[in-house]
Each structure stands twice: as C-alpha cells, then as structure tokens.
C-alpha cells in the first residue's frame, strides 16, 4: 500500500515535470519563430498571431491533460482503492 502510494506520488511528479518541459520547449520554439517572422514581415503579425494562439492552446493542452490526470491521481487515487 505504502509502496503504491509512493510510486503514484513519483509518477505524478514525473507526469507534471516532463509535460512542463515538453510544453515549455514547444512554446519557446514557436514564440521565437513568431517573433522572427513578425520582425521580417510586420504586416503578417495579425494573421500569425491567431495561428500562434491556436498552436499555443494545442501545445498547452497535452500538458494540461497530464496535469489533470496527475492531480486526479493525487486526490482520488484509483490504484489504492483495490
């Protein structure tokens, strides 16, 4: 039982941590490219901004789903019920 609890706590940390790394790298790459592109062609900023926000939401989503699952495990742990 304690074993399971400890492993689930570790798993939650890994889920959130690795997800955050991935999402950060993704957002950083995209934001950097957006700034570069808008410096080259300032007239495209409006159009690119919409697309950037969509992609930011898509990148964020995978991470936030991970956070939701990790928080669910932390509070209503299905593995300790059995």
């Amino acid at each position, binding site marked *: 039982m304690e074993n399971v609890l400890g492993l689930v706590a570790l798993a939650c940390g890994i889920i959130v941590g690795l997800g955050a790394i991935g999402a950060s790298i993704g957002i950083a790459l995209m934001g950097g490219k957006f700034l570069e592109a808008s410096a080259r062609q300032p007239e495209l900023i409006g159009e690119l901004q919409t697309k950037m926000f*969509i992609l930011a939401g898509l990148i964020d989503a995978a991470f936030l789903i*991970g956070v939701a699952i990790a928080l669910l495990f932390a509070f209503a742990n299905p593995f300790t019920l059995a």
Partner: protein
Amino acid sequence: MAAETSGPTAGEYIRHHLQHLQMDITTFEGTKQTAIVDFTVVNVDSIFWSTLLGIIMCFVLWRATRRATAGVPGRFQAAVELLVEMVESQAKGVIHNATSRKLVSPLALTVLIWIFLMNFMDMIPVDLFPHIWHTAGPAMGFKDYMRVLPTADLSTTLGLSCSVLAICIFYNIKIKGLGGWGHELVAAPFGDKWFLYPVNFLMQMIEFAAKTVSHGMRLFGNMFAGELVFMLIALMGGVWAFNLNPLSGGFWLGVGHIIAGTVWILFHILVITLQAFIFMMLTLIYVGQAHDAH
C-alpha cells in the same frame, strides 16, 4: 481544519466535488457510476447546466437579431456583429464552399459561444453552487452532489466532438458521394494500389478516431485541470477560515489563497476563451478537411 472534527479532509473535499449528480435512466433514481462506460447513467448536473446556458445563449442572440437596426448600431449589436463577422471570416479561410458555410458558420458560432459560456462556469466561485445545492438538493430528494462546469465532464466534451465527427462524415458523403468517399477511405494517404488498401483504411480509421478523441480530450483536460486547481485554491482558503493571527500558518495560507486565486483566474480567462476558440477552429478545420478531395 483540526478544530472542526466534523469537517471533511482535503481528499474527501476534492472527491466530493468531483462526483457528478448522476441518475439511472432506466429507473430514474439517483445512482453512482461504477463502470468506466455505462450508458444507463446520466450526469444530470452537466445536462442541466449545458442546456440552461444553451437556452440563455439562444435567447440573447435572438434578442440581438430582433433589435438589430441598419442604422447606427448600439454597443450590444456591435459586439454581436463583431463576433459573427470574426467567425465568418475564419470559416471563409478554411471552407471554400459557400453553400456549406451557410450551415457551418452558424454551427461554429454556436460552438464558440456555447463552449465559452460553459467554460465560464469555472469563473464562478467553486463552492457557490455546490453550497446552495448542499441545502437545496437533499431537501428536494436529490443527492448532495453538484458540478457546475459541464465541459469538465468527459461525456459532454466527447459528445460535442462526436457530433463534429458526424457532421464531417455527412459532408464527406455529401461532397464526394458515397462511392467517392469510400474510394478515398481505401486509397487516400499512400496511393491507389490494391495491396495498399488495408493500410490506407487503417490509417484513415486511426485518423478519425484520433481527431475525435483528442478534440474532446483537449477541452476536457484543460477545464478539468482548471477546476481542480480552483478547488485546491479553495482548500487553502478553507484552512484560513477567519484565522487572523499572522503568526499561524493558516493566516498565510489565506493570503496565498487570495494571490493564487487572482493569478489563476486571470490566467484562466485566457484559457477558457482560447479553448472555446480552438474547439471552434478545429471544428471548422475538420469540416474543411471533409471538403478536400485527395
């Protein structure tokens, strides 16, 4: 928390708030879901709130059309026009078929506003409606469970994404014909060779399944995580409970409650709008894909 012996622990509080008000549709009695997929169980609270918000949205937009003038528009009319034009221009960029846009643009507008309103239930204090229900619900013979955020329910979001899938299939058949779509299903990604048919068909099925599931899961995951974080912030305030002694830890948790709540609600305003917008854009993109012939 230690002082009140009858109060729930943190885990009990979260678990209680994550329990839907559920009903068995075969007997119309309150029940609790035990299997992962159980089509006889209905989440009454999600259905009630989403229907109510849908009715409010329809009424407000109906009023906007009734009171619209061709002259100088008022603030309300200007706001609605701005929204409709924004959705229409996004639809124009993705779907190049004017007859399809007659159905798909209003659909996208509905999806955007409805999901935004449902997401907006997250901005209402997490304990307000559950607390009202805590006294009102059992008095009317219901169980003491209430979740006000319909999009933090996987049933709602997957229902929405499955409806989008149905519309995609409808347009696939309407634009390409049953035979044309059937041919595309077996010939599309890799090429029209008989030995590639099984692989192509498998890829197409995976694509449809992945699109639909990720469409629903994305909205659900975002809103569920947001709701859970609001509950955790509410727990910090629960520890505070008018503990005004700055030397105790509970007081500083209360300060943290206010700071964290403010920061998270400001961030979440962005998230709920963005997620509603993304859901709308992906609806348009998926329906637009149904128009493309490979």
